[in-house]
């Protein structure tokens, strides 16, 4: 009797495990497919009303194109427009449409489509579009945009998508985007993946892979597991993940994430209302040590919100303005009336383990000058409402990205009355310098003016600008080719089969 039951048990085990072992792996590597694993998910593809989420922009970069588009060195190049003319004081921009360019739905791009798209962007209140005083078509191929003020950097904003006229009247773009880019939208499976198909009638040099699948994975652990098991062919992640990859069967490309990680101090609360205290904190933080220890040295130390990718505006001299100096920090603290240090809480959004770990490192660094920093993790929804919008915090850690590659995208939030000035930074000198930089008529003077702006920011030290955290792009040996951009984008046209 008992033997029978045992036998039954064993049979059951075998049956179940046999059933489970039946199928093998088998992914798309033999076919014309590249499977990319993304940590996070894309919930919409709308280029206008949102255009916001980094994950979405990462992929829609391949679907949509503007009149101009960003190239790898950060400059803009013509796309839907063949040619751009700018007048002397940078107030009138004239675009000439490219001939015979087609949308993914097969229809040809006309001036109507362009006018419709620009109007969408203006209505949506997209960054930079508020500078447009008027825009009109002088003939079927020519668009003239007149600005309300001079702006030599205006083209940086004009990368917003061109879509077919009337195609987004009811928000259709959200889940069924149509653009002119090298890849067209294929199939979207909510919270699972999106498939892109090569657009054969692309006007330029398109991609070489026929089908791109972007899988939405929950976190970096899932990325690593899926990569090691062969479920995905490539992924993008943080520097610390490099250690987990066997370089013999993977190609790793290092790039920057194009945003500055900041230990943001709330300038409106004690003791951070005193610039000496903020400077003391900056001196006590050793950015190089944070970068080397937490990020395995992958990334770059910065001293300003403007990331190194904006080469023209970037100021390497700020990197070490607050080089680690405990004595100087102690002297400043004593000056400010805190000879024995003080205690404060840093609220870190818990969905970013990298910020939490950096904060752990900074705890020890600040302890050396008697400052006791406590970490409090908060979920991102709470962080956004309480910390970012409500400004109810003492300190926080975050990397703030820019939607475009213009310096304003990174510097506008420090203007005293800016709605996104979550650090409560207030400096008359900064406001004045920033206004001056906006009104610069030519590029050279604008660059100089924006550098002056950054210098003021560094001196007044609203928070500690630590590093541009590096990122890794990892492929299996079957694939190669990666283009790095100074903004959030994954260019799938660069990916091709390895020889």
């Amino acid at each position, binding site marked *: 009797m008992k033997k029978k039951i045992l036998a039954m048990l064993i049979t059951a085990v075998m049956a179940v495990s046999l059933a*489970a072992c039946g199928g093998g792996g088998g992914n798309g590597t033999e076919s014309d497919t590249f499977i990319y694993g993304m940590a996070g998910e894309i919930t919409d593809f709308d280029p206008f009303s949102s255009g916001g989420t980094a994950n979405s922009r990462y992929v829609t970069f391949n679907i949509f194109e503007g009149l101009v588009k960003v190239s790898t060195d950060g400059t803009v190049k013509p796309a839907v427009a063949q040619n751009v003319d700018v007048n002397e004081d940078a107030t009138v921009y004239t675009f000439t449409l490219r001939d015979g360019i087609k949308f993914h739905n097969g229809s040809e791009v006309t001036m109507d489509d362009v006018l419709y798209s620009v109007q969408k962007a203006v209505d949506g209140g997209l960054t930079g579009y508020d500078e447009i005083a008027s825009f009109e078509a002088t003939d079927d191929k020519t668009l003239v945009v007149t600005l309300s003020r001079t702006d030599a950097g205006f083209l940086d904003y004009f990368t917003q998508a061109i879509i077919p006229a009337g195609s987004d009247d009811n928000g259709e773009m959200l889940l069924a985007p149509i653009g002119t880019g090298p890849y067209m939208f294929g199939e979207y499976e909510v919270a699972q993946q999106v498939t892109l198909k090569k657009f054969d009638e692309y006007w330029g040099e398109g991609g070489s892979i026929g089908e791109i699948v972007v899988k939405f994975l*929950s976190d970096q*652990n899932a990325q690593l597991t899926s990569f090691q098991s062969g479920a995905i062919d490539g992924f993008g992640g943080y520097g610390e993940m490099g250690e987990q990859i066997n370089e013999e069967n993977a190609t790793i490309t290092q790039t920057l994430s194009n945003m500055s990680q900041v230990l943001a101090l709330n300038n409106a609360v004690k003791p951070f209302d005193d610039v000496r205290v903020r400077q003391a904190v900056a001196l006590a933080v050793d950015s190089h040590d944070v970068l080397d220890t937490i990020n395995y040295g992958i990334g770059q130390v910065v001293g300003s919100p403007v990331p190194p990718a904006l080469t023209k505006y970037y100021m390497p001299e700020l990197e070490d303005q607050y080089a680690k100096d405990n004595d100087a920090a102690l002297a400043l603290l004593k000056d400010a009336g805190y000879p024995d240090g003080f205690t404060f809480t840093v609220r870190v959004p818990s969905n970013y383990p990298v910020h939490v770990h950096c904060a752990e490192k900074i705890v020890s660094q600040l302890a050396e000058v008697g400052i006791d920093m406590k970490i409090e993790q908060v979920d*991102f*929804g709470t962080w956004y409402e309480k910390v970012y919008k409500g400004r109810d915090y003492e300190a926080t850690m975050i990397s703030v990205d820019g939607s475009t590659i213009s310096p304003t995208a990174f510097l506008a939030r420090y203007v005293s009355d800016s*709605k996104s000035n979550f650090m409560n930074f207030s400096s008359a000198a900064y406001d004045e310098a920033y206004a001056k930089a906006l009104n610069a008529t030519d590029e050279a003077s604008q660059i100089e003016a924006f550098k002056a702006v950054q210098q003021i920011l560094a001196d007044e030290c609203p928070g500690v600008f630590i590093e541009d955290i590096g990122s890794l792009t990892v492929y299996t040996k079957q694939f190669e080719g990666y283009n790095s951009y100074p903004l959030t984008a994954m260019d799938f046209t660069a990916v091709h089969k390895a020889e």
Partner: protein
Amino acid sequence: MKYFLRKTLILVLTVFLISVLTFIAFHIIPGDPAGLILGTNATEEQLEALREQLGTNRPLSEQYTSWISGFVKGDFGTSIRYRMPVSELLKGRLPVTLALGLISLVIILLFGIPLGILAARKRGTWVESVIHFLTILGISVPNFFLCILLMWIFGMVLHFFTPGEYISYTKNLPGFFRSLFWPALSIAIPQTAILTKYIRTAMLEELDEDYVRTARGKGAGETWILYLHVLKNAIVAVVPLIGMIVASVLSGSIIIEQVYGIPGMGKLLIGAVTSRDFPLTQTLVIYITVLIVITNFLVDIAIQLIDPRIRLGGKS
């Protein structure tokens, strides 16, 4: 019949209670769905436009009443995060989570009960010690650690499956069950251990009862029949556990779905809450409630069938 009516009424009440609770929760916790969609780059105009579009600029109470009036008519509203009808989102996921739960439950019952009996039957021997050790291990090994272990040994080393690969049931049904087996096993192992432990404890209790001693004294012998008879009594104590197990399977599947990348309810719920998606969260919470209430209701009936001493309704 009256009993069923009463239970249905209670189910409706519980669902209502839970929807009010969810409403209160959303009232309390901070978070702006539009802001979470657009991130730190958005201008105030963009945020306002999106809030208008999503309808989240209305007071939450208004959002709630419009959602609930739709719900009673069978319209679950539109997800804020995914901008599509909630019913459409659920359609694809319901089978996934249900299949995951059922496979786990089958494994749990298939192994938990016999192992529990065996441990009680073989008490004092090495068999009991081994089972005892395994159950303690099963209970104390952390769930997600177990996942990693399974993925590593059976996925990476033995290549029984490809971790991170999920096969949709619409594409390949056997493949679908195959890709759910290992996640289900991860959910099932700790629960099986718990069930084994409870069965064993309850059996041992029961074996010490007078009637068993008498039966043994009369020479009934240590047959499986005796143990099955004892089991019938012991199981009363264990049946409510099934309700607990179903709840654990549901909540356990949240972590498992994340780790294995399975597009089920759990993954959706986490996303819904973290993005403050009110209609989607409401619907998911109610769906879970209905499942749990119905399970507990079935458990109540089962207890009554096995042990008529306990009367339904509980009044003595």
